[in-house]
């Protein structure tokens, strides 16, 4: 059963491409691969622990104020992650700027807490949170991979497309500026959804 909780969000029930949650940050932080990786990791950590904490508190939280309690827990974790990033990965944290703080508004986190953690025990909730974070991360990294490769010709900052290919050096190639712009992230996510739906026919609405 734990295996199922872990495997499903990775592809079959992916939070981004099936539930279409967390699109906003997929547009914002995927220009380069490195920030996308850090973002995916941060979200995974926050989601795992917030799920586990809320799940262990679930019987004591009064139903009417549960959103406030959830926000407090998530906010605490986000601040922790933000401080850790500032301490150990300052450059990336500067690139991510406000978007680390905005993890708190990531719809997947609230969605998983509401849909899963409030009704399940801490351990499955932890697994569910981590798995959903990873599912989100897979999409994020895939989008960032294409955007950095075609938009900047590099991956993780390393130039992959040889400099001699470029037109200014007498070659024929030019970076695709559209991949740097946010609309391309949306189009890429759309293409991923398209691919997934052609594999998983049961997702197609009647």
């Amino acid at each position: 059963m734990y295996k199922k909780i872990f495997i499903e969000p990775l592809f079959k029930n992916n939070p981004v491409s099936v539930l279409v949650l967390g699109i906003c940050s997929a547009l914002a932080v995927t220009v380069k691969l490195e920030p996308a990786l850090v973002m995916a990791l941060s979200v995974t950590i926050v989601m795992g622990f917030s799920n586990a904490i809320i799940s262990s508190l679930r019987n004591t939280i009064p139903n009417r104020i549960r959103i406030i309690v959830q926000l407090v827990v998530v906010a605490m974790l986000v601040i922790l992650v933000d401080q850790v990033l500032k301490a150990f990965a300052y450059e990336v944290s500067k690139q991510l700027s406000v978007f680390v703080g905005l993890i708190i508004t990531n719809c997947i986190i609230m969605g998983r807490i509401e849909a899963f953690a409030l009704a399940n025990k801490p351990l499955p909730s932890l697994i569910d949170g981590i798995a959903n974070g990873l599912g989100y991360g897979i999409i994020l990294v895939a989008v960032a991979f294409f955007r950095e490769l075609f938009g900047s010709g590099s991956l993780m900052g390393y130039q992959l497309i040889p400099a001699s290919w470029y037109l200014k050096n007498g070659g024929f190639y030019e970076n695709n500026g559209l991949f740097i712009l946010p609309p391309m992230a949306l189009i890429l996510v759309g293409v991923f959804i398209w691919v997934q739906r052609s594999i998983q026919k049961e997702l197609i609405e009647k």
Partner: protein
Amino acid sequence: MKAIRKIIDNVKPTFSKGGKLSFLHSSFDAFETFLFVPDTVTRKGAHIRDSIDLKRTMTMVIIALMPALLFGMWNTGYQHNLSVGADLEFWPTFFYGFFKVLPIVIVSYAVGLGIEFAAAQIRGHEVNEGYLVTGMLIPLIMPVDLPLWMLALSVAFAVIIGKEVFGGTGMNIWNPALLARAFAFFAYPSFMSGDKVWIAGLSKGEGVIDGFSGATPLANAQAGLDIPSFSDMFIGIIPGSIGETSTLAILIGAALLLFTGIASWKIMFSVFAGGLLTGLLLNALAPEGSYMAVPAWNHLVMGGFAFGAVFMATDPVTGSQTERGKWYYGALIGVMAVIIRVFNPGYPEGMMLSILLLNTFAPLIDYIVVQGGIKRRLERAVIK
């Protein structure tokens, strides 16, 4: 013709259901209907008895595009020869342009039709004729110096993301040709704007005579420089995208489209009217010597305004469908185009963006018009 019919009838079973090559049915069907009028008739439902079908409509638009294409070829050669100070004799000039433009047309058709055939094949439906016009429009709105692989990529993007994901011809939200241009414009801005890209060979700078500027009238107007005379811009001996420079050639095509009733005169007229009125308004408010003071009628012949109004805005798929909506749709295109040109320094040409914007809003305009009609009739029908 009989011989061809015979051959086709002979091989038909191979491609029909159960035949050996039945998976190529769509491609076969496309070629058959390209050569012969199909003899299948609608069995039930409403019939329109008219000789016009999608194929004939598309062919007519292609014919209407011919003046712009031929003029564009000549102008390509003319501008090039002007830039290197060569002879300006008619035929060598025309053939220079012809051989510059031909590869662009071929690439556009090869890539676009290739994807169309593949998509039809995968989905098992007929190959639509929609791309015939798009494939001719795309070369006409691209700068002549655009590298061919960038063109191919733009075409692929426009056909796949702009058309096929929505369900193919007739289902697209945006005009595919303009989407190809928008893709190239945002992906490779240095090849789609500036002073160097509009004239063949100018970006490499070989043998260009001193002091020659390849700037378009729009760029000049933006920079506050002199623009060519109205008659030059009307006839089209100015730098610009291949087919968009000559308002005269475009108007010949427009006359054909209007005569055959294929394009909506309401849209065409209201685009020009919207642009002109906005221009006049800006003229009236303009401070001395600013871009706003450029005479309003110049806006109608500069850049892609006329081409967009005649061939892009009137696209029956992406435009407004309701008769009253067409007025709003067209007028807003004209208004937006001039506003973007004058007030947005980032985009010298507003026509592409304004048509794409109004394409997005066309269903909303139709909705408002239809709801307005329903409301009016309901009020009339109240029984006291």
